[in-house]
């Protein structure tokens, strides 16, 4: 069987896979990282979003073998070793940006990439369009947009998360 070697959340793994094994199957079933969710399995919902070599991808639409030699970050890799939440996670909590939480890991991963990629700033409309690849059935998006706007200055070192 083919082997994949990749770094996930800072740790190197070598795993046997099939040609058809998806990156999300490798993460959830082989590495036990079940924070990455499968919502639709048809490339629409973004629940399975992880970072591959620094950018957001749908891990249900990526073969494990395509990630060979790559660096993957999942939702489990965001918080600090001592449990301190990533500023985006903290902002989601602060702004009530989740209800059932199913879309949240993918939403947070997309939002982190969006903020990292836009050091010049993000308008409300930029945030709404930037998260088009992630569907949420609960929140109506409004608080997600607020959370992302609040995380931007923290992630770019401009201020700390403040309550509304």
């Amino acid at each position, binding site marked *: 069987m*083919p082997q994949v070697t990749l770094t996930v959340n800072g740790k190197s793994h070598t795993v046997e896979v099939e*040609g*058809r094994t998806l990156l999300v199957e490798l993460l959830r079933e082989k590495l036990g990282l079940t924070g990455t969710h499968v919502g639709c399995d048809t490339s629409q919902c973004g629940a399975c*979003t992880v970072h591959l070599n620094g*950018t957001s991808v749908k891990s249900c639409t990526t073969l494990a*073998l*395509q990630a060979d030699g790559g660096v993957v970050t999942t939702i489990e890799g965001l918080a600090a070793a001592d449990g301190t939440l990533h500023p985006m996670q903290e902002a989601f909590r602060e702004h009530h940006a989740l209800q059932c939480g199913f879309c949240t890991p993918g939403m947070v991963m997309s939002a982190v990439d969006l903020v990292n990629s836009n050091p010049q700033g993000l308008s409300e409309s930029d945030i709404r369009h930037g998260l*088009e690849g992630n569907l949420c059935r609960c929140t109506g998006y409004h608080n997600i947009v607020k959370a992302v706007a609040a995380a931007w200055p923290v992630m770019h070192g401009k201020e700390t998360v403040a309550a509304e």
Partner: protein
Amino acid sequence: MYDFAYEKPTALAAAVASLAGDMDAKALAGGQTFIPVLKQRLNKPTTVVDLAALGLVGITVTADSVTIGAMTTHGEVALSAAVQKAIPALANLASMIGDWQVRHRGTIGGSLANNDPSACYPSAVLALGATIVTDRRSIAADDYFQGMFTTALEQGEIITKVIFPIPQKAAYQKFRNPASRYAMVGVFVAKTAAGVRVAVTGAAQGGVFRHAAFEAALSANFSPDAIAGIATSADDLNSDIHASAEYRAHLIGVMAKRAVAGT
């Protein structure tokens, strides 16, 4: 998904040989179309040949052309300052494909090889009169698109790059299906020294096509008013749950006028 062997050759000749040696071997680019197809078991390749290590990525701009490697992602085209300057309409088109996750993986070569009747890039390639370069030849846009999901590519032929001549002006307008984000109707208008070319995607059963009546009117007078009175026939246009053929025919005129106004 059926299982398959996976190869990631590092030389174009090796990739071509793998595809030529086996009728059931298939190329893989960004996988944003192909992996969903595999999941639905609509395709059963023996071997999947990943094109990612062939060095087909990159954008080169000269005084009169923009050349984009087949494995260049939609995101790279959208964010390229060189493309934004040379052919802003092309960068804008790429920025409206799908969502960021799709744009991070999906490629121009994959989009053109697939030739989905609702895909965006075919309209830019046809309207700008681009040239599709493969492992074995160059194909003019006018000869390349041969109907829905059908192209001039031979079995196992690999697109390596696409060369776009820089127009005087161009613009793309897309009426998106709000769920899939594909074009319900997309119109790409390009004004070149040789005249105006207008390509329509998303609308016709046969895929992307040139709109001769709009081209003639706009070549004489490049303004939205020039095409305001020209009706598009609904014959051969798609009707589905999203839009009737008549509605698509109407949208073609609206999108074309907006594109001309937006150049």
